[in-house]
């Protein structure tokens, strides 16, 4: 039996001229043996069919009612598209299998119908699964479940969404113990970690396709010293688009997508159809672009990570990545979007946006050849996600805490969960878990005489379902196009912060248009077409992906091997050679620190290569130490590669600044007040169910007083510093926005290996960060009060309302005291 397909499947394959692949047959055999497996395959490897074939075969041989297979994907659109693709074979073979999707977009009447008559194959998302598992009829709905197929496992494992899904699968294992699991994943660095996350017994590996062909295209003319937009390459990108069939142009941020889209259209004399796709555009608009791509109607689309995952589009024959890819796995993912025949190589072009990125691109290509993928070791599951899950479980049915603890521990991210942590989380869900036992009458869960926990009311269950999810966005406002006839369709959304800076008549760039801001009305931005002049570009506070450790290591290695520089453009080679002559190269093992005077200030540049987030944390800590040492630091800038600090006095005895105990009291003090940590707390509080989400539809009058998470954080910190949500916040902070773990690793490695070069002038390698000082948001150790004092004095001077205050000790303000709508540079 193993090695062949049963009819009518064999016939269907043959009619299409396909031969079943070895890994597809292996998946079939594993399913027949009831084994749970992880399939890793490159894109275009027939993964999806491999995932579904066993279910189709089984259902055809043994037809039944009810849910047989659950397919879970991180993307709503993917679920919808897969359903469409399944309909074809099901119809053509007359299989009599019902296939349906259920996501956040599914209309209410269809959801009700699905509950009454569940389909054989249900395609859904982790969030929709959580909703279904919280229904009182969940046990009945999933009793007959035979298979769970999880797609894009590599994108889920290790994230909070993955934590939530793992908990959901643990619940499904209790409801349907015989159900097997099949995971579909791209080629990954740590496949075994993925296997463990999935709970699979073995891994089936599809052979690699032809290795991708990746080249680097350096912009003509002077290579930029800094910045990450890469817009100067637009003419060359346009030329490549014209020379190919269909191209995906990947960028790293939404603002960059808008700008590159405009730049290409300015050069688009032949009027080629070029589209735009990013996460803040209206859903319908994104679907239109995706459909147009699938139908081969577009010559190019400019996209962010919004197109990293998704349906294979056979017609894409070129991928251009603008700006350094930040990681080898991410690059492979994107490259894989081109040309999905396994035996043909995918082609991609990397366009570095500045000199350092030339190095990073070269390192990424080397990483791809060496198959050195990135991947962080798995981290324990979030306690905030657990809190959300436990409330959902209580909504479905009363549970015994001991039994629930065992079930939760069977989910891989929670395998090492301590009983104490579990109890703390459960106490939080019940009544807030506060040392001051104040909320007896507001409990959300209560014990019955057998010690089982019940949800207190239907209202609690309703609130739970309204707040499901592990992704927390900043408050957003819809952007509506207004014409003569009033407000029209929504184009997408922008962050409230950006909108609040616009004044009537201001021009901004969004959804590929130049818009003129009119007003904010009923929680939406109203704007008309035809903005003129220099436009502001909405930026979003989502963290830019930092450089991965593997890639950083390779870049350091490149710097240390002059033989490898021959492939670089002349400008880059000269730059590096000059660095060698004037200073020295950052070493692979040591930590290079340069100091030099310039324009009446002193500069200290640290070559850490640990990524922006880690460098910002390090900047905060370092400037505190410098202040105590009397160097009078004034500000700092962090890039992915280096940290640059400027000060009034000359830094001396530099090595001592990097003592490892920077991570002791200094870190505690800083973290205690850090706005990064407050943001992290807010996310944790929303996910755990302490604070409700902002619902975009809810017409909340702006006059309504709401509870600010910062205020809660301050009170909680003072009165119960060990509260479980604060612990969850600290755990998140080790990675994420503050990347403390990475700073710790760097300081540990650098112990005793600080190399200080005291220079008389700026070194070549330091030029980029000096230029960033003009562009990037300036961070400083000065706290908010000091900043307010400075602003107050400056404005008063300008207004000449008071006698001028003594000049503030800061570099000459590079921005006017009145902040104009910026180019969105604060967070881009």
């Amino acid at each position, binding site marked *: 039996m193993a090695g062949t397909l049963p009819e009518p499947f064999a016939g269907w394959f043959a009619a299409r001229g396909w031969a079943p692949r070895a890994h597809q047959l292996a998946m079939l055999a594993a399913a027949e043996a009831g084994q749970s497996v992880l399939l890793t395959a490159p894109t275009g490897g027939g993964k999806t069919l491999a995932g579904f074939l066993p279910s189709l075969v089984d259902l055809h041989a043994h037809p039944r009612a009810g849910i047989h297979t659950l397919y879970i994907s991180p993307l709503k659109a993917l679920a919808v598209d897969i359903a469409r693709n399944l309909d074809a074979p099901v119809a053509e073979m007359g299989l009599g299998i019902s296939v349906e999707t259920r996501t956040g977009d599914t209309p209410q009447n269809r959801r009700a119908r699905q509950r009454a008559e569940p389909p054989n194959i249900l395609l859904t998302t982790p969030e929709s699964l959580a909703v279904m598992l919280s229904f009182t009829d969940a046990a009945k709905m999933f009793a007959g479940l035979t298979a769970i197929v999880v797609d894009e496992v590599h994108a889920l494992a290790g994230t909070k969404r993955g934590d939530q899904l793992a908990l959901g699968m643990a619940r499904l294992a209790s409801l349907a113990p015989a159900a097997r699991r099949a995971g579909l994943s791209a080629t990954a660095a740590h496949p075994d970690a993925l296997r463990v996350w999935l709970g699979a017994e073995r891994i089936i590996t599809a052979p690699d396709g032809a290795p991708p062909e990746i080249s680097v295209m350096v912009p003509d003319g002077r290579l930029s010293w800094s910045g990450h937009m890469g817009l100067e390459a637009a003419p060359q990108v346009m030329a490549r688009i014209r020379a190919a069939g269909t191209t995906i142009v990947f960028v790293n941020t939404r603002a960059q997508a808008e700008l590159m889209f405009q730049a290409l259209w300015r050069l688009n004399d032949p009027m080629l159809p070029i589209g735009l796709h990013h996460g803040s555009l209206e859903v319908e608009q994104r679907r239109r672009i995706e459909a147009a791509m699938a139908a081969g109607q577009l010559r190019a689309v400019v996209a962010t990570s919004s197109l990293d995952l998704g349906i294979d589009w056979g017609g894409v024959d070129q991928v251009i990545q603008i700006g350094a890819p930040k990681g080898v796995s991410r690059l492979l993912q994107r490259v894989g979007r081109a040309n999905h025949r396994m035996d043909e190589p995918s082609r991609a072009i990397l366009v570095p946006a500045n000199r350092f990125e030339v190095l990073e691109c070269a390192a990424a290509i080397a990483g791809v050849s060496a198959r050195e993928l990135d991947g962080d070791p798995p981290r324990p599951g979030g306690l905030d996600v657990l809190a959300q899950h436990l409330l959902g479980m209580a909504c479905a049915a009363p549970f015994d805490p001991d039994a629930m603890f065992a079930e939760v521990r069977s989910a891989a991210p929670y395998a090492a969960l301590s009983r104490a942590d579990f109890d703390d989380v459960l106490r939080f869900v019940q009544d807030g878990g506060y040392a*001051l036992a104040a*909320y007896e009458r507001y409990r*959300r869960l209560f014990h019955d005489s057998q010690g089982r926990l019940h949800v207190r009311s239907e209202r609690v269950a309703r609130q739970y379902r309204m707040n499901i999810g592990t992704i927390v966005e900043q408050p957003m406002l819809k952007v509506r196009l207004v014409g003569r006839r009033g407000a029209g369709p929504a184009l997408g959304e922008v962050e409230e912060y950006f909108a609040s800076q616009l004044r009537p008549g201001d021009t901004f760039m969004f959804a590929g248009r130049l818009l003129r801001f009119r007003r904010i009305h009923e929680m939406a931005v109203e704007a008309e077409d035809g903005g003129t002049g220099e436009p502001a570009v909405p930026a979003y506070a989502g963290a830019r992906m930092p450089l991965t450790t593997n890639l950083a290591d390779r870049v350091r290695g490149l710097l240390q091997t002059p033989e490898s520089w021959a492939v670089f453009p002349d400008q880059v080679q000269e730059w590096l050679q000059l660095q060698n002559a004037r200073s020295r190269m950052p070493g692979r093992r040591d930590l290079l620190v340069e100091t030099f005077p310039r324009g009446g200030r002193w500069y200290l540049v640290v070559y850490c290569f640990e990524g922006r987030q880690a460098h910002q944390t390090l900047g905060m800590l370092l400037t505190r130490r410098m202040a105590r040492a009397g160097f009078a630091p004034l500000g700092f800038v962090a890039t992915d590669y280096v940290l640059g600090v400027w000060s009034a006095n000359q830094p001396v005895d530099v090595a001592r600044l990097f003592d490892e105990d920077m991570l002791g009291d200094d870190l505690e003090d800083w973290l205690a007040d850090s706005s990064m940590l407050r943001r992290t707390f807010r996310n944790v509080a929303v996910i755990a169910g302490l604070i409700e989400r902002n619902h975009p539809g809810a017409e909340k009058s702006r006059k309504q007083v709401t*509870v600010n998470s910062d205020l*809660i954080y301050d*009170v909680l910190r003072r009165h119960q510093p060990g509260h479980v949500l604060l612990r969850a916040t600290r755990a998140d902070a080790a990675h994420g926005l503050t990347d403390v773990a990475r700073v710790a690793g760097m300081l540990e490695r650098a112990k005793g290996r600080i190399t200080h070069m005291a220079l008389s002038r700026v070194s070549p390698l330091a030029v980029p960060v000096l230029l960033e000082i003009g562009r990037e948001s300036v961070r400083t150790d000065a706290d908010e009060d000091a900043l307010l004092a*400075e*602003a107050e004095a400056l*404005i008063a001077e300008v207004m000449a309302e008071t006698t001028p205050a003594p000049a503030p000790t800061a570099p000459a303000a590079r921005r006017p005291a009145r902040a104009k709508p910026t180019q969105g540079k604060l967070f881009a």
Partner: protein
Amino acid sequence: MTPAPLHVADERLMLDPMGALYWPARHLLVVSDLHLEKGSAQAARGALLPPWDSKVTLDRLAALMRRYRPQTVVTLGDSFHDAGGIGRLAPEQQDRLRAMTEAARFVWVLGNHDPDPPRGFAVEPTSAHTAGPFLFRHEAAPVEAGSIEICGHHHPKAAMPTRATQVTRPCFVTDSRRVMLPAFGAYTGGLDVRHPAIWRLFSAGARVFLLGRERLFSFALATARAG
């Protein structure tokens, strides 16, 4: 901590960085919008907020009373988050509040959230209080000539652009006829002064005073508007 002096109608008032107003000539302290028991009100609706907000708010009020030793305290309304708040206030906090109301004359202006005065406390409930040129009430309303209104209700906050980032703080808003206090309560959020509900109450020359740790920061209201 350094309060900021404010001269209105030949009187000197002190704006305190904790968000209170003091009138030295009459030993009179003013606070507004304490919203005691907001935490428990939210808890009743399913958001189990840390239950220490009333304690923290009363800690702050106690600190102010120690600093100024007022003879009169005027609370400008919404002292409790809702009508049931007094019943939910923990006995220990009730005792503290009672002690405060016995240490000074407490003029208790009624607000929209708490239209009734708390029973069993030595307070003088009123919808408006006059002293000298000042009219103390909860929510701003048209002011007759010669009168200066001291009010709360709107929970003003302002976002100021600075060299690094925008800084948002609760603030006082003042012009020649009106002084609006920020909300004093630990869990009270704010309304941006750019909102018409606040903005239209003040004249072109109005100023905002943002609360800082040690002092206040003063800007023209027009600066907040221009962003």
